């Protein structure tokens, strides 16, 4: 076996039929991850993976195999994994060995899923291009001179290239959905409160959620089924009754009311992106959904709300990196000087920028003008979504205004970079679930359709996304460098050759 099956569903069928073993799948994934030419991986934990795969094979032999048993997966390196180094993409956590695993990792361990390793990301998940990693940028397998999106860029690429069958990411303002759109994968952010963040490095606590990257909508629902549920260790998880998230995958959209918010088709959206998304909307209409234009008038203010609340919360969360109990320490003249040198050396430019911005917004004299004001406008944005969801079952929008852009194109213009998330961050502000599914190519690069549903209405969201996916083959397209080609081997020898030199390809 040189390649993994395309989906979790196919792999699970092979495992159950004893046509493949979990150890075989793990070996393929380890080999593919180990020769990945896109800098998607920070570490491959081979021994850990093989031990998990052997245990999975025993469970399968006993006939006791949950849907994810034996399935190889990749973990964004901001999610803590016991005894497997976890860095959050930052020099300040280089070498950090978590003494416990995040609840999401424990849940996947219990299912028998096989973790292959940890994926690259923007430092502390702060970024939309994966260029802010202390361990180098990730390249997009559709065109290695371009970014894969971020912050979960490594996780997106690991699935887009078929190195693993699913990956976990985190999404604070679009960090799962935007890289999914830019790499042609399915990426999903659950309702705030459905998935535990215990053991996940905290970024902006009122916005962060963990979610999956997969090849199909069905696979996304399968992973969510394992992740969802209240966790006594995370007081922000909701006590909801268990439900079958896959129940409406085949129901179709006939009779559904789907809203298209006019504020999401603005100046600045690339014509090829708008065309692909409009085509997708027409496809759902053809299948019997009624499409209505709706309005979310305060969409324009979401970016401002986000760039106050998110850095403010981050500046508080990242106060813990002081060089005392773990992580980097750079000794100074006294303790305060040690804090400053440690943080000045250990944090990258984007993290420092956001620490300054967030601390400023929370400082005396500006707290009301910035932080409280942003929280009030947050109330307005949330209320507008709630009003719209009284009329429609789901919303359809582009995931990102552009396709993947060139590495280096926006690094010196933070505002241009922040605009990448203009269609995804309102969903985090309101705490709603959202999914990005591939809806075609523009200039040879993937475009994502975003489906947003009401609170805890993931089953409805999957219903719409699956109906669209069934009618198209966009999700089955693979990037040109899919597989173990010689181009990959060349890149691996000289990873930096890939950055900014499209002529190599």
């Amino acid at each position, binding site marked *: 076996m040189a390649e993994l099956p395309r989906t979790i569903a196919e792999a699970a069928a092979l495992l159950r039929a004893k046509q493949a073993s979990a150890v075989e799948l793990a070996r393929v994934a380890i080999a593919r991850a180990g020769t990945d030419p896109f800098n998607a991986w920070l570490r491959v934990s081979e021994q850990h993976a093989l031990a998990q795969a052997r245990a999975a094979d025993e469970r399968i032999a006993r006939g006791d195999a949950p849907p994810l048993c034996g399935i190889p997966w990749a973990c964004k390196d901001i999610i803590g994994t016991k005894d497997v180094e976890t860095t959050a993409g930052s020099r300040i956590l280089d*070498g*950090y*060995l978590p*003494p416990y695993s995040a609840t999401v990792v424990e849940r996947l361990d219990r299912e028998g899923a096989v973790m292959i390793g940890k994926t690259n990301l923007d430092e502390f998940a702060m970024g939309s291009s994966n260029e802010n990693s202390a361990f180098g940028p990730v390249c997009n397998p559709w065109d290695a001179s371009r970014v894969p999106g971020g912050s979960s860029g490594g996780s997106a690429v690991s699935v887009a290239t078929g190195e693993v069958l699913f990956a976990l990411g985190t999404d604070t303002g679009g960090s799962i959905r935007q890289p999914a759109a830019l790499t042609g994968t399915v990426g999903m952010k659950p309702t*705030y*409160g459905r998935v535990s963040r215990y053991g996940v490095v905290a970024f902006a606590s*009122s916005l962060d959620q963990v979610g999956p990257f997969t090849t199909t909508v069905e696979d996304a629902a399968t992973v969510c089924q394992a992740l969802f549920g209240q966790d*006594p260790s995370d*007081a*922000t998880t*909701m006590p909801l009754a268990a439900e079958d998230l896959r129940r409406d995958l085949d129901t179709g959209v006939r009779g559904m009311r789907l809203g298209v918010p006019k504020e999401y088709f603005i100046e600045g959206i690339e014509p090829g992106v708008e065309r692909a998304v409009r085509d997708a909307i027409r496809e759902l209409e053809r299948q019997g959904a009624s499409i209505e234009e709706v309005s979310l008038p*305060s969409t324009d*203010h979401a*970016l*401002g*709300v986000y*760039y*106050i609340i998110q850095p403010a919360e981050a*500046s508080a969360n990242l106060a813990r990196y002081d*060089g*005392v*109990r*773990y*992580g*980097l*320490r750079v000794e100074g003249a*006294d*303790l*305060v*000087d*040690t*804090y*400053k*040198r440690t*943080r000045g050396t250990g944090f990258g*430019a984007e993290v*420092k*920028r956001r*620490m*300054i*911005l967030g*601390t*400023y917004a929370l*400082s005396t004299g*500006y707290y009301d*003008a*910035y932080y*409280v*004001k*942003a*929280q*009030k*406008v947050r*109330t*307005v944005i949330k209320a507008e979504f709630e009003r719209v969801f009284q009329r429609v079952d789901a919303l359809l929008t582009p995931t990102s205004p552009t396709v993947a852009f060139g590495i280096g194109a926006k690094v010196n213009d*933070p*505002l241009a970079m*922040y605009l990448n998330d203009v269609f995804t961050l309102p969903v985090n502000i*309101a*705490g709603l679930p959202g999914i990005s599914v591939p809806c075609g190519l523009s200039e040879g690069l993937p475009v994502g359709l975003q489906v947003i549903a009401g609170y805890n209405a993931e089953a409805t969201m999957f219903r719409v996304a699956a109906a669209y996916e069934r009618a198209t083959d966009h999700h089955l397209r693979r990037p040109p460098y899919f597989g173990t080609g010689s181009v990959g081997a060349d890149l691996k020898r000289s990873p930096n050759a890939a950055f900014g030199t499209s002529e190599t390809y």
Partner: protein
Amino acid sequence: MSEIDSKVVRYVADLARIALTDDEVDRFTKQLSVVLDAVGKLGEVDTEAIPPTASVLPLENVTREDDARPSLTLEEAMRNAPARDGDLFRVQTIIEERPGG
């Protein structure tokens, strides 16, 4: 809303306990001014009668029984320490001992 200049950036970096180079101060001052201009548009929204939202969850005061539960061992909790002294995290002196005190 107010202008951000290099003095403010230095002051805030001190509050955030981050050492910045002069070059970083210049760069961040320019970049953050642009971001704050964009954020300043929030002033246009009338929020006179609107309460702030800190969390979207309909939860408050989540409590649990105050039972002892298994926790990390001392070794597990200490193993990432940059410097330690037995069972203690070692840091620089923060309180000077007075002679005879």
